[in-house]
């Protein structure tokens, strides 16, 4: 049963990812992004990690995807305003050829590696366990992330406050 759900989720994840890259209309790409995010949340749920599942739904779907869809709708993209780009089969073939060895190596390595994990604790994935983990073992990265967010916020405000007035 679990593996069936896994493959269904994986199917949605991959097809969403392909949609993001190949759709010509950016709104369809955003829908693909939504699919990826929801399927990812499903993956976390499958791993019994309820905190990450909630966070993914709240932040990933609720904030990131909705925001990107809103932006796409509000800037009113028209076909004639979009840059002319033709997807050239030769370029795709060349890129695939270049990436194929890396994918092959990765596949080979993943299949060959024997993953032995410690048995998970009974309260694994709950908000309580996650909070304890964050504030005991990972307190340094956690604190630096808050500084990172502060810096990114200042940057975002600076960028949005400026007006682009190009001098000729």
């Amino acid at each position, binding site marked *: 049963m679990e593996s069936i759900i896994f493959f269904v989720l994986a199917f949605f994840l991959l097809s969403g990812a392909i949609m993001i890259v190949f759709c010509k209309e950016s709104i369809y790409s955003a829908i693909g992004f939504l699919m990826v995010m929801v399927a990812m949340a499903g993956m976390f749920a499958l791993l019994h990690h309820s905190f990450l599942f909630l966070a993914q739904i709240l932040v990933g779907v609720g904030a990131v995807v909705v925001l990107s869809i809103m932006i796409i709708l509000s800037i009113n993209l028209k076909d004639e305003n979009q840059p002319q780009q033709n997807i050239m089969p030769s370029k795709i073939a060349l890129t695939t050829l270049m990436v194929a060895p890396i994918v092959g190596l990765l596949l080979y*390595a993943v299949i060959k*590696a024997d993953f032995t994990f410690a048995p998970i604790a009974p309260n694994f994935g709950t908000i309580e366990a996650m909070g304890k983990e964050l504030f005991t*073992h990972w307190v340094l*990265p956690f604190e*630096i992330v808050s500084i990172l967010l*502060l*810096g*990114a916020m*200042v940057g975002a405000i600076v960028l949005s406050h400026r007006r682009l007035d190009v001098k000729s």
Partner: protein
Amino acid sequence: MIWDLYLVMPLALIFIGALFLMLFSLVQKVELANYNLVTVAFLTLSLIIELIIFQNVEHDYLFETIFAKMFIVDKLSTLFNILFLSGAILTLLINNNYFKSRDYYNGEFFALLLFSIFGMMMLAHTNELITAFISIELASITLYVLVGYNHHSLKSSEAMLKYIILGSLAGVFFILGVALVYGVVGSTYLGDIYTYLAHHQNDEMTLLIVGMMFMMVTLLFKIGAAPFHSWVVDVYIGSPFPVTMFMATTLKIAIFSILLRLFLVDFAPIYPIISEIIKAVAILTLLIGSLLAISQTQLKGMLAASSIVHVGYMLIALYAISLGSSFAASAIIFYLISYFLSAVGAFGILSFLASDEEKRHLSFDDFKGFAHERPYMAAAMTIFMLSLAGFPSTIGFLGKFYIFMSAIEAGEILLAGFGIMIAFISIYYYFKLIALMYFYPSANPKKKFPFSISTLLIVAMALMIVWGGIGTGLIPFIAGADGLLTIASEALKTIGK
């Protein structure tokens, strides 16, 4: 505990400085020069504390009961912090005139710069891969904004967008690599990865090696090595001068701090696998960088492209480390310092000219007869160009000398010869500027030497470069630049396994 608090002071000061400037920038009446002064004051205070720490620290985990072994303080991290801080101070002071001449700078610029330096310092201190990733992102996210700071120029915005998209794509590889490493080792501490690698056979840990290669992709991208170099020229040309200087020098030093730590501690058991890759990357970087540098018509573009070549030289030394050269790691640190002095000086002259004159000095042709117009500036520029080309009697020569020495020590005479050939090619594009400055008549009358912080610093840096080159061999009783090499190797000894 008190000692730990003392060790964390420099970082805390930088963060407090960033917060202070962030809040302070709301005040409308403050002049821009004052922001610059406040930033430099915070940086200087932090630098002084770091200098004292450097004398007294050996190898220490900071707040071990709270942070476990994530926060490492040793001589190497302190040395790198000193380099970042002095780099930032020099960059800010040399651009003092430039900040005043442009209307788009404000307090937030300096706050973002301090955030970026905080990320770099954290990167030098980290002993754990997730912290390293967050620090790299902190250092680069703020830089993305700084690159696009000039809102009068579409080029600046274009450069920002390019850098954001490519930079975050490259950053993803690091976290993917960390995930793979964690999957195999079960820990993200550098020491644990070393222990795992040392006790397992190569064919058991293919996934681990693949993960480490992914991490290398990000680091090579950030220093601008080929084949991840395509962003360098566009972004460097598009960004404002202070940011270009900061990216070309200080960011590179920061990435090398984690690269050296990874390379010396973790990668040691898999040198046979990784060394061939580094060699190929080094040769590619040298060749492609030279080709790019020759074809540039803008001076900023030439300096940007030649920074790729300089990364190539340092990768030669990185390759020499993997072959067992004891002296290559300190050669890299020395080269970083020598490149820093020469590049910041050269960019500094360009930014000074951009602030002092209506006419923009952008292309090579604008420098025709420059020596007759501003003889002192031209002399300083000549010294910087000679140092970048690796001409004897400058610090750049010593840097290249140590790099090629380490390659020869590792038995790679052909690679050293190749590097020397690339250095000869680089003479073409550096000496072109010198020839243009001196061998053409000037259209404008001679100008007086303008005394200001920027110009005085430029002259001081030119003198430092010459001192670094000749002070070593000829004057026996004065401390020379090879003292830096001793300091570097002393710092490298404290790195723990």
